[in-house]
């Protein structure tokens, strides 16, 4: 029955919508005769309902104005506690509780729904529990209902049980509750009921009551964990402080409590509050730096979270830098000190500030759970995904993110098949070193790989696409236009990324010297520095502000560089392993399939599987790979490879072996095929190494000098005279003569009888250098160093030993030149073997 003071319509002040009165429930006191606490009215239109509380006394007896009850709010249904012997049912909302009242059952609910459970006074229920009455929560069958049940269960503790499923007979609809069960039960008796008003006449309430009481035990149990929406920290009562606070915070800011004679005064330190909510130790594998995570508030509103290095905190310049001019640190000689102290002290109350470690690099780390491979937002160990390991890679995290390892053998096999398919996009001369590099990369730090792969080919040969497929083993987001490093990045940026991306394949894309001379020089300087550091496993020495040396941040990954040409410096070429790519070598159909597999994360999952296995007995596996490396290097040396090449071939064979072993272990490849592939791979790598050796020789300054000299003479841009008479020599056309006339500059003399060429050192070197500069391949070598190299490589005779008298004694000096009497005149010359300059012609 609607009290006449409750209006028939309700206008929502926010939306302006009007709702019609539907029903009202009285919050009666537990004892009869006592005035009621208030009413709750239900209004509804065609689509929505509104529940309006009337709890504000308006001065007249038993009349109320709209408004919530004062806290602690009374429960609805207290007058039915006298029926509590059959148990107390806690429903979500007055409609359901009221429906159960019609059956003579004790049913209670709290006003305001699931979010206001804590505001209600649950003491009557707790009292009933203490008296031994069972309490069951009957929530609506939907998520809000479950949330309400969780809130009530947490409030009442373990003493209450819960209706896990709606009792038999409840209609299958979202949010079905007690009223819906009763409505359906009445319908079975042939009676219609609107769910709100009194039950229709003829309803057998006793039968319904028994029916319900019999149905309840079957669906009653403890609160299901699945209903708990999120892990909520257990609400604990505040601890009792032991001594008066020295600093306090309110919505107005941070205060210091100052003792004065006869009382206590407040001193405002700042108009904001700040609290260190976490201390994050950022570990890059070499050093750790501490970062404070600081949350603040200003006038009760949250300020943006600040991430601050521990060194920046004490200066107290950070509040205005991060939060602007609205935040004020008040004046006073000691204010900043007290504010700093206040933030630190209050941050550790009541509990210590939590501290955790964030790793800022990829690759292997030995953690408490064993050897673990770090990748963006993930970590893989022998057990699969390592829990509780935080990895932050910044923007690189978008690319280098491995998924969890495969769950089933078939998933592992499919992922490995995708990797095998990716290794067949190009001929073996290209694909073998690439796939070997992929599987070698996770061993980079352990094996100390000291070279980079140089994938070189003209524009349009799909170099970047191939590199992206290789890198796709370390994350599904790689694409030909989405690679981690470009050669145009600054040297520092490239080196930082190479340090961060440990034990992984790092693609450095697009070495193509173009533009102005200055731009080309800058690019070449970057290549020179980076490749030298990769080859030497070193880095630029850096100092801390206190002048102590920082640990070296040398490259820790395996670099795969794409380029349109070779570097011109010999010492750089020897630190690279060259992989030439010619046009139309890439199978576009297979490339497309591999790109799809990469995007689908199959290649990355294959790598996750490989790492998962490697993490188990990591040290033993590394020792095995080291042994294999020594064996392969020995074989490569026996095959005639020199200098760094045997080591490079051995590294790549170790990587290729690892790939084959993984593919075989997941049944993606049979042992015979693997053995065949291994043999072919060895042959290909030896062939590539021999080609690369020739390339390096060509770039060797002494060799370059000899061959350029031969070209100059053959082209007639310089000429030699006969040593015998200073005239036209025999075979003059070889030595820069045409039709008995000398061409170009005179650079020395030749004696075919002695097999020697006598060069005027300055003039000869000037002509060779000018030619090489025109070709953008200067020698980058001082004259004395060049003569020494020519001597060491057996192209030049040593100079004469000269005695020089100094103040105290006489000493011998070895010169690179010697004085020869040519045509009766003494000349200071360098003496080269004729066969060194004209080796090609002699061979022919």
């Amino acid at each position, binding site marked *: 029955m609607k009290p006449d003071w409750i209006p028939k319509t309700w206008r929502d002040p926010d939306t302006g919508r009007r709702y019609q009165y539907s029903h009202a429930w009285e919050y009666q006191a537990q004892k009869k005769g006592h005035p009621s606490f208030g009413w709750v009215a239900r209004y509804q239109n065609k689509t929505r309902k509104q529940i309006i509380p009337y709890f504000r006394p308006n001065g007249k007896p038993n009349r109320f104005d709209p408004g919530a009850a*004062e*806290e*602690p709010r009374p429960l609805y249904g207290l007058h039915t506690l006298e029926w509590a012997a059959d148990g107390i049912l806690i429903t979500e909302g007055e409609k359901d509780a009221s429906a159960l009242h019609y059956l003579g059952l004790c049913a209670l609910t709290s006003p305001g729904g699931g979010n206001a459970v*804590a*505001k209600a*006074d649950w*003491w009557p229920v707790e*009292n009933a529990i203490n008296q031994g009455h069972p309490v069951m929560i009957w929530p609506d069958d939907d998520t809000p209902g479950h949330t309400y049940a969780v809130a009530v269960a947490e*409030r009442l503790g373990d003493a209450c049980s819960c209706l896990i499923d709606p009792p038999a007979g409840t209609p299958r609809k979202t949010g079905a509750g007690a009223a819906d069960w009763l409505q359906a039960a009445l319908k079975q008796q042939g009676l219609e009921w609107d769910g709100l008003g009194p039950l229709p006449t003829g309803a057998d309430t006793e039968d319904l009551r028994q029916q319900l009481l019999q149905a309840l035990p079957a669906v009653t149990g403890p609160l299901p964990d699945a209903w708990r929406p999120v892990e909520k920290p257990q*609400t*604990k*009562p*505040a*601890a*009792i*402080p032991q*001594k*008066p*606070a020295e600093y*306090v*915070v*309110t*919505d*107005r800011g941070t*205060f210091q*409590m100052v*003792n*004065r004679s*006869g*009382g*206590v*005064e*407040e001193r405002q330190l700042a108009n904001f509050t700040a609290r260190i909510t976490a201390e994050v130790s950022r570990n890059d594998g070499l050093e750790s730096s501490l970062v404070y995570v600081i949350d603040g508030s200003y006038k009760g509103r949250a300020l943006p979270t600040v991430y601050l290095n521990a060194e920046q905190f004490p200066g107290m310049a950070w509040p205005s830098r991060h939060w602007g001019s609205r935040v004020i640190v008040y004046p006073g000689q000691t204010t900043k000190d007290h504010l700093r102290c206040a933030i630190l002290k209050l941050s550790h109350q009541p509990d210590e500030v939590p501290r955790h470690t964030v790793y800022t690099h990829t690759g292997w780390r030995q953690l408490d759970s064993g050897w673990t491979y770090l990748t963006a937002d993930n970590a893989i160990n022998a057990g699969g995904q390592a829990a509780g390991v935080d990895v932050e890679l910044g923007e690189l995290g978008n690319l280098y993110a491995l998924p969890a390892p495969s769950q089933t053998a078939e998933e592992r096999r499919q992922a490995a098949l995708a990797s095998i398919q990716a290794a067949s996009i190009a001929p073996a001369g290209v694909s073998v070193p690439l796939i070997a590099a992929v599987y070698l990369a996770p061993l980079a730090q352990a094996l100390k790989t000291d070279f980079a792969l140089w994938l070189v080919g003209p524009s349009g040969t799909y170099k970047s696409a191939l590199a992206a497929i290789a890198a796709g083993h370390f994350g599904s987001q790689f694409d030909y236009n989405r690679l981690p490093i470009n050669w145009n990045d600054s040297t520092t940026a490239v080196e930082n990324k190479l340090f961060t991306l440990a034990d992984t394949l790092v693609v450095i894309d697009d070495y193509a010297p173009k533009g102005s001379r200055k731009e080309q020089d800058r690019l070449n300087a970057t290549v020179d520095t980076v490749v030298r550091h990769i080859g030497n496993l070193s880095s630029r020495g850096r100092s801390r502000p206190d002048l102590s040396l920082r640990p070296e941040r040398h490259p820790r990954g395996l670099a795969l560089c794409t380029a349109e040409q070779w570097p011109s410096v010999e010492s750089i070429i020897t630190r690279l392993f060259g992989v030439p790519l010619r046009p139309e070598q890439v199978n576009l159909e297979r490339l497309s399939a591999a790109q799809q597999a990469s995007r689908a994360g199959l290649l990355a999952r294959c790598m996750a599987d490989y790492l998962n296995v490697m993490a188990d007995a990591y040290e033993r596996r590394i020792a095995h790979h080291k042994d294999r490396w020594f064996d392969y290097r020995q074989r490569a040396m026996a095959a005639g490879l020199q200098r760094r090449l045997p080591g490079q071939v051995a590294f790549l064979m170790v990587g290729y072996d690892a790939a084959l072993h993984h593919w075989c272990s997941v049944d993606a490849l049979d042992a015979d095929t693997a053995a065949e592939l291994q043999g072919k791979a060895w042959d290909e790598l030896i062939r590539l190494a021999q080609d690369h050796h020739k390339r390096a020789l060509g770039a060797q300054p002494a060799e370059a000098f000899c061959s350029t000299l031969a070209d100059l003479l053959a082209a007639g841009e310089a000429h030699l005279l006969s040593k015998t008479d200073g005239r036209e020599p025999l075979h003059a056309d070889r030595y820069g003569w045409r039709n008995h006339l000398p061409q170009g500059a005179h650079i020395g003399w030749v004696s075919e009888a002695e097999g020697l060429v006598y060069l005027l050192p300055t003039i000869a070197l000037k002509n060779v250098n000018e030619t090489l500069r025109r070709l953008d391949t200067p020698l980058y070598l001082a004259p004395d160093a060049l003569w020494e190299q020519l001597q060491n490589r057996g192209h030049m005779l040593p100079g004469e030993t000269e005695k020089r008298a100094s103040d105290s004694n006489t000493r011998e000096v070895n010169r690179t030149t010697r004085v020869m009497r040519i045509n009766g005149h003494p000349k200071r010359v360098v003496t080269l073997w004729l066969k060194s300059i004209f080796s090609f012609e002699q061979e022919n």
Partner: protein
Amino acid sequence: MSRLSPDVLKAALPAAAYYPTVLPTLPAPKRAGWINGGLCPFHADQHTGNFRIHWETGAFTCFACGAKGGDIIAFHQTLHGLEFKDAIDDLAVRYLARRTP
């Protein structure tokens, strides 16, 4: 004479620190929010359950005698019959002034 704002006083003297000193029958709280305050200090209370206090805000209410207030200052005023400012001074002197040992 103390010079404290009400919000600073309440921040410096939480209800959790204050109530145990003035409510001898206060049971150990097991949860946050509204809790049983033991016997009401404002009437001759003989049964626990009527008097409730809020462990965080310091609000209190007695269903038996109707005493109620929103914070510990209101409680202290009612308990000692003090004006608002005097209640703040009294609380500061009693609870916040550090005494030399």
